[in-house]
């Protein structure tokens, strides 16, 4: 029986960050993990997929060497080596988290945690079980891929992201079901690696959470790369055999047609890991399995907190990390630490990044949602073809779009597609968080030559004064 100030259940990007922040604030902290320190994000999610996509990107450059005046012959991809590199990257970061736990004197309990009260839990592993108590507990157990109800993933022909990350063989003809971030990232990876790819999206456009202009641009770009995109379409059945999968797909017109694929990736969303944690017994309020929280990540049960994918959307690693910090600071404040000043989360300022090819990055409201929220908007758009650096890089496909409130000059949203945009969105995010208005962006000096000049030009374009178009 060990007694802590704080136990964090789950060591993903929400949990381990919460634990470190709590330790910094002087709390006696423990973390419980059933599988790998670092959780899905750095073992099976964000990070290893970026390693895979980097290999695909370099392959793409090699294949297009001629466009840069270079010659490369006998280009081929070694899928096993690509996957091995990705696993190596994941392992390195996993060890990094292990080190951070040790450095911050956070006790790691490996095993499956189950709450026995708002401030107590048991950890069960092969070695037996132990009871832990704490003044506060943060639930950060995350989420997993949602299965198709009629065709659960088997890892052989029907994959989730997790199988797609460590493929035993290269798919020749791939069906990607769902065009959210995970779907289009794997579609891009396998397309660049040489597979024939079909994406099926139930809604009327790809990446449906993004701005409609971004969706339209991406769809065109993916089609140009040779992908088959079916929007407004649904997979009615998926039958796995030794040689592949057969899918019955109902198209936009309602016509059902059967097609054969070598593999299918199911990327239709997530389900929270909220079962078998003892939450129901404690009367924790939930919505469709996701725990309800206040802006400081408190649940309705005193002493029990929740962060990350197990709570409300957006389900993003950096949102989980930020909530981890908020919860740790709020807990420290409740325990009497006067230096902890938690600030509530503002969901409008959480950026999103998708690493398909071309990349997508955005923050805030889409034009459509801004109008629906009653804003009178001013919108500007700057295409990369007007940016010298993008042309020099041979990456002139893309644009930056900004949505401002016409009355107040508030930046309501920014939407980008094209090379390097995931590294640039933070500029707008800082501006939004600091509540800058159009004049602040206009008066900022952007370095030349960079693609980020497009961010400046988009704001200028919003106010009818872009220079390079």
């Amino acid at each position: 029986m060990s007694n802590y100030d704080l136990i964090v259940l789950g060591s993903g990007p929400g949990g381990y960050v919460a634990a470190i922040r709590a330790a910094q604030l002087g709390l006696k902290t423990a973390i419980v993990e059933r599988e790998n320190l670092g959780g899905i994000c750095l073992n099976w999610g964000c990070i290893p997929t970026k390693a895979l996509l980097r290999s695909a990107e370099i392959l793409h450059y090699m294949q297009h060497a001629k466009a840069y005046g270079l010659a490369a012959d006998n280009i081929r991809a070694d899928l096993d080596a690509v996957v091995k590199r990705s696993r190596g990257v994941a392992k390195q970061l996993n060890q990094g988290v292990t080190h951070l736990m040790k450095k911050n004197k956070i006790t790691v309990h490996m095993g499956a945690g189950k709450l026995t009260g708002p401030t107590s839990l048991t950890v069960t592993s092969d070695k037996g079980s132990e009871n832990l108590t704490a003044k506060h507990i943060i639930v950060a157990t995350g989420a997993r891929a949602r299965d198709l109800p009629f065709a659960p993933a088997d890892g052989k022909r029907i994959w989730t992201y997790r199988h797609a990350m460590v493929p035993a063989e290269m798919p020749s003809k791939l069906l990607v079901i769902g065009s959210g971030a995970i779907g289009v990232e794997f579609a891009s990876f396998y397309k660049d690696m040489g597979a024939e790819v079909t994406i099926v999206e139930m809604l009327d456009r790809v990446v449906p959470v993004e701005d409609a202009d971004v969706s339209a641009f991406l769809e065109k770009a993916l089609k140009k790369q040779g992908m088959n995109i079916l929007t407004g379409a649904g997979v009615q059945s998926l039958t796995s055999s030794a040689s592949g999968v057969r899918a019955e797909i109902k198209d936009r017109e309602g016509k059902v047609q059967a097609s054969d694929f070598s593999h299918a990736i199911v990327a239709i969303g997530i389900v929270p890991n909220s079962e078998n944690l003892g939450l129901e017994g404690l009367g924790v309020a939930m919505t469709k399995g996701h725990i309800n929280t206040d802006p400081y990540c408190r649940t309705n049960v005193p002493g029990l907190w929740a962060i990350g994918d197990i709570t409300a959307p957006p389900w993003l690693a950096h949102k989980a990390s930020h909530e981890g910090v908020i919860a740790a600071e709020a807990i420290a404040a409740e325990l009497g630490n006067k230096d902890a000043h938690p600030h509530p989360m503002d969901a409008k300022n959480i950026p999103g990044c998708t690493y398909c090819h071309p990349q997508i990055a955005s923050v805030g409201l889409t034009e459509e949602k801004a109008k629906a929220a009653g804003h009178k908007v001013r919108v500007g758009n700057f295409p990369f073809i007007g940016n010298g650096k993008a042309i020099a890089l041979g990456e002139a496909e893309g644009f930056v779009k900004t949505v401002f409130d016409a009355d107040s000059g508030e930046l309501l949203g920014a939407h980008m597609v094209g090379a390097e945009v995931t590294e640039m969105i933070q500029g707008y995010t800082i501006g939004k968080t600091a509540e800058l208005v159009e004049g602040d962006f206009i008066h900022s000096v952007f370095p030349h030559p960079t693609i980020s000049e497009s961010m400046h030009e988009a704001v200028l374009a919003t106010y009818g004064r872009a220079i390079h178009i």
Partner: protein
Amino acid sequence: MAIELKMPALSPTMEEGTLAKWLVKVGDSVNSGDLLAEIETDKATMEFEAVDEGVISKILVPEGSEGVKVGAVIALIGSDASDVASDAAPVATPAAATPPPAPVASAPPAPAAAPTGERIKASPLAKRIAAARGVDLASLSGSGPNGRIVKADVEAAGSASAATVPVAAAVPAATAASPATAPATSPAIPDFGIPHVDEKLSGMRKTIAKRLTQSMAEAPHIYLSVDVQLDALLKLRGELNAGLADRGVKLSVNDMLIKALALALEAVPQCNVSFGGDVLRQYQRSDISVAVSIPGGLITPIITDAASKSLSKISTEMAELAERAKAGKLQPHEYQGGTASISNMGMMGIKHFTAVINPPQAMILAVGAGEKRPYIVDDALAIATVMTVTGSFDHRAIDGADGAQLIKIFKQLVEKPMGLVA
């Protein structure tokens, strides 16, 4: 290079405070953890500790200054003694014990937030929205980093002044009222030439005045009284105390009444509520604020989750809280919050009284003296120890029948007190 020493936020809701006393002077060396000053908030006086080390090179806000905004620079700490000279006013010699008083000599009276002439920290968006809506930024307190005024602060101010009904739009998280929204100005007292002494109100007295006025003005009170026989409770208390003596615990009648009220609130959650204009918040825990009389006023330390605590735990917590309350050493989280209150004037021999609800709570229990009275027991006149209790309920939030049910269950719990230890 001087380090700016800023007015600390000693609680999440603190927006300004009185710099009651400096415990250091210019030229003093300070180390992390040294006490620098005493800061008086609306209810308590707290000590402000040093985080950085160095030499106090300049004091910008003299002691006794009221309405010092959180985040305002109150003094400068230099890295060594030479900074005293460089940071002090040019005319002062290093040997002078105290440099000339600060430019920010006395802050304007509350509720004006920003001292005159001080730069107002506001985001560009907040400034623009304030200009468009005609909101005076100087009247606002900022919730952003370092007290920066952000959009939400301006919008909150805009909606508050536009509202015609003087009811808060949401239930405040803590009981501290925002000074920006409560002018609480009273007319000057006419002078009839009677010999008198005027004493300046303390922060606590101002808060008491403001909140009790607000409560009586906004919350329609209803009062429900009942007589409660105490003999069984007194007998149980004697037995329990005999058993607890070894542990140094001595239960008071009030400790047992705290628990009884908490259990009654759990049984009748309709009374464990706050009225929030367009929402009714029902609490899922009973945190009992206990009125404690202290020099110069009154404070209500809280027994959190009293229903699930043992009587001995309530007793030890209460003794400790009351002691620190009397010393003015309570932390804000120890007296801000609470879901219902109890006020006991029995020890003063008061037979019956009604109490003013402590907003945003919606009920308070006023407890009179337990005294021997002629009482009908089993249809015969007998002598019993009886007290009269009166619940005050915010009738916007609580119906009379629910209030009566709460009082009834409280009476049962006291008269059959085994429920308090079960």
